[in-house]
């Protein structure tokens, strides 16, 4: 049983971790600080935290409202006061948490970056004077966990056509947002 003040401090630590899941080191440090300050042993605290973390994760998956989160916590044995406090925190943080979850969703060959250059072909081994414009794109693609570079050359008409198509895609995506 944790007193209310410390409970809110703990909740803060938990949500900070949830919204920045990469900061594992920081989370663990804060947890052990909390344990020392409140004279709780770290082992049992970690177990409690583990089960507590399950609730927001499950809530996220199932798009639970804060009411439902509160009810879940009460069912777990938390006091009404603490459950309400947690549910409030949940409501405040859920947009960020949702965004993170969506960001984790599977993407196939995700386009990470695009670099470009264009120039003029002055001459070649077959033609002394050329004077045509070329456009080169380098697409950085995430394949699984690796990054792959793809190089493509476009003629000018192809570029304009590509730009036109991408603008159509944007219109389409916007109409669905």
């Amino acid at each position: 049983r944790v007193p209310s003040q410390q409970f809110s401090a703990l909740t803060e630590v938990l949500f900070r971790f949830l919204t920045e899941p990469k900061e594992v080191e920081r989370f663990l440090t804060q947890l052990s600080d909390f344990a020392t300050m409140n004279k709780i042993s770290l082992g049992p605290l970690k177990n409690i935290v583990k089960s507590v973390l399950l609730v927001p994760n499950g809530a996220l998956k199932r798009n639970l409202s804060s009411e439902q989160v509160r009810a879940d916590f009460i069912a777990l044995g938390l006091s009404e006061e603490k459950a309400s406090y947690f549910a409030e925190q949940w409501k405040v943080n859920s947009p960020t948490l949702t965004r993170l979850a969506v960001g984790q969703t599977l993407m196939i060959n995700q386009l990470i970056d695009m670099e470009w250059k264009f120039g003029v072909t002055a001459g070649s081994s077959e033609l002394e004077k050329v004077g045509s414009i070329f456009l080169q794109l380098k697409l950085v693609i995430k394949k699984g966990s690796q990054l792959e570079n793809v190089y493509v050359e476009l003629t000018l008409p192809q570029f304009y056509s590509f730009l036109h198509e991408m603008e159509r895609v944007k219109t389409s995506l916007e109409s669905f947002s």
Partner: protein
Amino acid sequence: MAALREAEFAALQSLLKVSGVRAGGNGAPGPRLSALRFALRQAPSRDAVRQLCQECFSSPPAALGPLAQRACPGLAAGPVEAEQLVSALHNLTRHVVYRGLTRAEDILSLFPENFHQNLKNLLTKIILENISAWRNEAQASQISLPRLVDMDWRVDIKTSSDSIIRMAVPTCLLQLKIQEDAALCGNNPVVSALTVELSKETLDTMLEGLGRIRDQLSAVANK
């Protein structure tokens, strides 16, 4: 730089056998020509010369040997003579395209003084007919990075995943068909299809970049 060496122009004159162009131009015909005059009784054909010019231009240097062998019977020439002729035609046509010569006078001036007049006119005429097609061919087969051949897209709405059960996130799938460098693949260009997924944010960033390219292109065009 001279278009062709003297020996190559000499080799070209063996076309007289095929072209039906009557011998008897300016200057005293060399021993080669007089020997050739007898061969004029062969089937004359300006079209055969035309065809040969086209094949010689399009053929890469490595394939000239086999081309010469195939041309032997039509030319009524021995293998060595055919090879010299084919090589000379290849060099001449490629030189004209390289320099971007478009006027008859420029092409005529490439030939030496004592070159057979009518044959010279015939070759110039054939070259002029083909010059722009040949130029396009040269540009199309130029070395380059892999080229974009086709592009398709579709917009999907993601409704659910293992990390979140209900959502409505639009996403774009873009398929690019990319052809490897033509020079490397010869007659069998390898076309690969690459499917890429873009989120709305990525698309917006990409469009920003493409817009910048367009602005720069119009700045260059207006100079």
